[in-house]
């Protein structure tokens, strides 16, 4: 591809300079301690908001799980977050942002900054990063921001695999995904790797975080197979989540956290218009809700509350890549479309017998693709700043950027799909990825953790058990949690 050596990364694209002369002057003298504090504060607060999204995923995934698995979901969320933090610290950050080549970074293991230049304002890890010279923040702030992104990507994967995945199996996947797979894909664009060189744009990670998570989720559910009872005589059955209130709490927390996810991705505050990004993000989320409500009404003929919530997520995912590059009206269009297409995709997945309990594939996957492509359609000149990219196709630009976006998506899906397929299959044929039929029927809470998530009110719903499993003994064989046997 064309060499664009002076082009900033899509992350650096956050630098929507307000064009105030003082900034340039300040830059010459080096950033003041005040500016460093302001920039760090913005990034750290953004990271805290993204960390808070874990509560959102917990509530969303618990809400959409069966009651008998609610405690197991809670356990998986907190251990996944922990694995993500430790692995990204150990290897992930170095692979993603350390000095290396176009495929991966190779320095900075365990956040070891001994390679760093003396300059306290440098990232100390990646000469590419230093070259940009834009990140007037300490490396720890940058690390904190990146590690919580990695944890988000992992949280997405689990949602689609809930109600049937073995604890130990998922742990192994989490280690590999956060320590190796995610960082490599992140490196390609945000670490100055080959996709960056090609000019691929993904401001806050529609592809890198969301599509990647959804791709792994798709592979995961294919390897696992659907939940018992999901398909019956070929017809999809409703297996409703047990708590729409907790689900919706999760959606709103995610929405709030996304303010840090997108607006925080400017990676600094001084001279940057992050408010703009926050507004675009809210408009897309709102439009996503309206889109999904209408979509569900047209396709399902019901006012499906779970789709309304998913519509918000779809809008948010879609605006994640283009949030810094498009005008508000385009944000509305992007969100609306993301919401509108979610319900038909749910139907489609049901048709081809893919079981996706939380809807990660439509709202993180398809919406992620749509959002990444939307840059090539709607990007406005005024907001592309010094990126040297042409306007979106629909605004009279060329299709060139659309093509870059397209193969960036393809590469993400291809690499993540292949890598996670290998990992999931390896787990399946060693420690096992799915619990036994008896354990699944009894629920993961009691069978894997020895105690119900709601010990005082566990009630099974008659009608959710298909014939196929009638001859299983259910809880007969469970005298103690399998893990202690």
């Amino acid at each position: 591809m064309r060499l664009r050596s002076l082009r900033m990364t899509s992350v650096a694209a956050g630098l929507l300079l307000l064009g105030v002369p003082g900034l340039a002057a300040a830059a010459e003298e080096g950033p003041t301690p005040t500016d460093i504090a302001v920039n760090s504060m913005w990034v750290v607060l953004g990271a805290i908001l993204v960390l808070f999204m874990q509560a959102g995923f917990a509530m969303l995934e618990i809400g959409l799980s069966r009651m008998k698995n609610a405690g197991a979901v809670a356990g998986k969320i907190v251990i996944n977050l922990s694995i993500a933090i430790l692995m990204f610290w150990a290897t992930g950050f170095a692979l993603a942002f350390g000095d290396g080549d176009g495929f991966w970074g190779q320095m900075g293991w365990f956040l070891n900054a001994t390679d760093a230049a003396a300059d306290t304002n440098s990232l100390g890890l990646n000469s590419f990063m230093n070259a940009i010279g834009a990140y007037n923040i300490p490396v720890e702030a940058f690390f904190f921001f990146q590690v919580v992104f990695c944890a988000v990507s992992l949280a997405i994967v689990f949602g689609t695999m809930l109600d049937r995945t073995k604890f130990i199996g998922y742990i192994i996947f989490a280690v590999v995904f956060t320590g190796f797979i995610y960082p490599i894909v992140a490196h390609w664009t945000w670490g100055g790797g080959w996709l960056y060189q090609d000019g691929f744009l993904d401001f806050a990670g529609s592809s890198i975080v969301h599509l990647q998570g959804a791709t792994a989720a798709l592979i995961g559910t294919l390897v696992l197979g659907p939940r018992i009872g999901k398909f019956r005589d070929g017809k999809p059955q409703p297996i409703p989540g047990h708590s729409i209130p907790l689900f919706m709490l999760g959606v709103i927390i995610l929405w709030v956290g996304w303010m840090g996810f997108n607006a925080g991705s400017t990676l600094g505050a001084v001279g940057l218009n992050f408010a703009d990004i926050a507004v675009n993000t809210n408009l897309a989320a709102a439009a996503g809700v309206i889109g999904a409500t209408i979509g569900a009404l047209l396709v399902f003929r019901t006012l499906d509350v779970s789709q309304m919530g998913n519509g918000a997520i779809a809008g948010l995912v879609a605006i994640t890549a283009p949030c810094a590059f498009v005008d508000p009206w385009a944000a509305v269009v992007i969100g609306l479309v993301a919401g509108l297409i979610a319900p038909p995709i749910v139907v489609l997945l049901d048709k081809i017998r893919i079981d996706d309990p939380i809807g990660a594939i439509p709202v993180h996957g398809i919406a992620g693709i749509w959002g990444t492509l939307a840059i090539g359609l709607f990007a406005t000149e005024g907001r592309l700043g010094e990126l040297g990219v042409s306007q979106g196709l629909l605004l009279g630009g060329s299709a060139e950027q659309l093509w870059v976006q397209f193969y960036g998506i393809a590469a993400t899906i291809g690499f993540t799909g292949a890598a996670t397929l290998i990992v999931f299959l390896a787990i399946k044929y060693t420690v096992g990825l799915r619990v036994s039929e008896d354990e699944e029927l009894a629920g993961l809470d009691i069978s894997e953790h020895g105690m119900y998530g709601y010990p005082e009110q566990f009630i099974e719903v008659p009608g959710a058990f298909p014939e196929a499993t009638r001859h299983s003994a259910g809880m007969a064989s469970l005298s103690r949690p399998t893990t202690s046997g």
Partner: protein
Amino acid sequence: MKKIEAFIRHEAFDEIRNRLADMGLPSMSISEVKGSGRQGGYTESYRGAKTTIFMRPKLKLEIVVDDNDVDRAVDVILELAHTGEPGDGKIFIIPVDDAVRVRTGERGDVVLAPHPEDAPGG
């Protein structure tokens, strides 16, 4: 003595209880059941997948009464649980051999003798 088992709509219960209590029959038990009968099912829909639920929530009322209270108790239920729509429910009369009051150890008809409602806190 007989046990009256009535499967009724939830909304009928309050008035039935009050009437029975006024008649000296405040002793009874209720529980949640789901049932099907002539009343059709209804559709539940979730993310586009639909299913027909035939088992609808009903209230099960259990009252053990002396033989000569059976009819007036059944009549009260019949009157107050009736709307004329499918789903009003059914009443079954089941023979009972004996009744024992745990507090006193008393047995037989005395246990089922009509009595006034006790005041709160009694």
